[in-house]
């Protein structure tokens, strides 16, 4: 026996716990996708016309940059294991920057909708009818909930970045980085389905 104090750590269990949390998130969004699917099925024409209000360009740009940020986050997991601290921080900062860009695009997109009188409970929307109201309520709720996840991910990655910088997170205990990565990929995963459902199927 040695006298060195042993701090118990179970990375495999931490990862499993993170995945269990991700399952609850997946089921939450799956429920919303089912609601969307049913309402679309019941109001095909209104959903078709309402979806044309959304800019495919903005949606595509956001999809591509979010995919890039997912790749840089995944690469950070490799970089920390290769003991490349500088590159890890660079990759994390790129991820944070892209998250910020995504939110900026989202801000202008929502702002444009608000200026056109389209927001939950607006008079213009009520005049458009039941189907449009449903489409835009779901649009604001689901992209809003997704944006909330982006903000949470942003905070998590900031903490990881700070800890990598002051050497409390290294190649010996990269589990927090890995789990934040899993969360970030979840955010990406949800967007992969939100994008075609709201922007493309018109």
């Amino acid at each position, binding site marked *: 026996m040695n006298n060195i104090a042993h701090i118990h750590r179970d990375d495999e269990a931490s990862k499993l716990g993170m995945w269990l949390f991700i399952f609850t998130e997946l089921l939450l969004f799956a429920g919303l996708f089912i609601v969307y*699917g049913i309402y679309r099925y019941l109001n095909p024409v209104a959903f078709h016309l309402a979806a044309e209000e959304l800019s495919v360009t903005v949606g595509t740009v956001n999809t591509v940059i979010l995919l890039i940020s997912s790749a840089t986050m995944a690469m950070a*997991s490799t970089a920390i294991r290769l003991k490349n601290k500088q590159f890890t921080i660079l990759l994390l900062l790129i991820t944070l920057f892209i998250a910020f860009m995504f939110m900026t695009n989202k801000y202008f997109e929502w702002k444009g909708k608000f200026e056109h009188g389209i927001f939950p409970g607006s008079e213009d929307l009520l005049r458009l009818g039941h189907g449009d109201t449903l489409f835009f309520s779901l649009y604001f709720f689901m992209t809003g909930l997704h944006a909330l996840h982006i903000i949470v991910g942003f905070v998590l990655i900031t903490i990881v970045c700070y800890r990598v910088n002051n050497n409390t997170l290294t190649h010996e205990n990269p589990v927090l980085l890995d789990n934040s990565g899993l969360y970030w990929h979840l955010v990406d*995963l949800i967007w*992969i389905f939100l994008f075609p459902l709201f922007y493309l199927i018109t």
Partner: protein
Amino acid sequence: MNNHKIEHIVPYRLYLIVLSGLILLTLISVGVTYIELANLTVFTAIFLACIKSVLVLVFFMHLKFDNKLLQILVTAVFVLIALVLFITFLDYNFR
């Protein structure tokens, strides 16, 4: 559990290849909306999104290199979601 076992370090190159695949699939899914596919539009969009999500799960989320238990659990959750979707639509279709 053992925290010090030799881990599989995924090379950067693999992530970059997967990323280019994902971007390509995104551009394809935008491209096909300009082609009139009628009923197939929804199917193609969902199908391409499914391929993309599998790529993210398997490579970015590291499932390819994880233990069997996790692989089975993740698959089970997606099967569950698919079943619930299917049954809900059956209900609405034959109501």
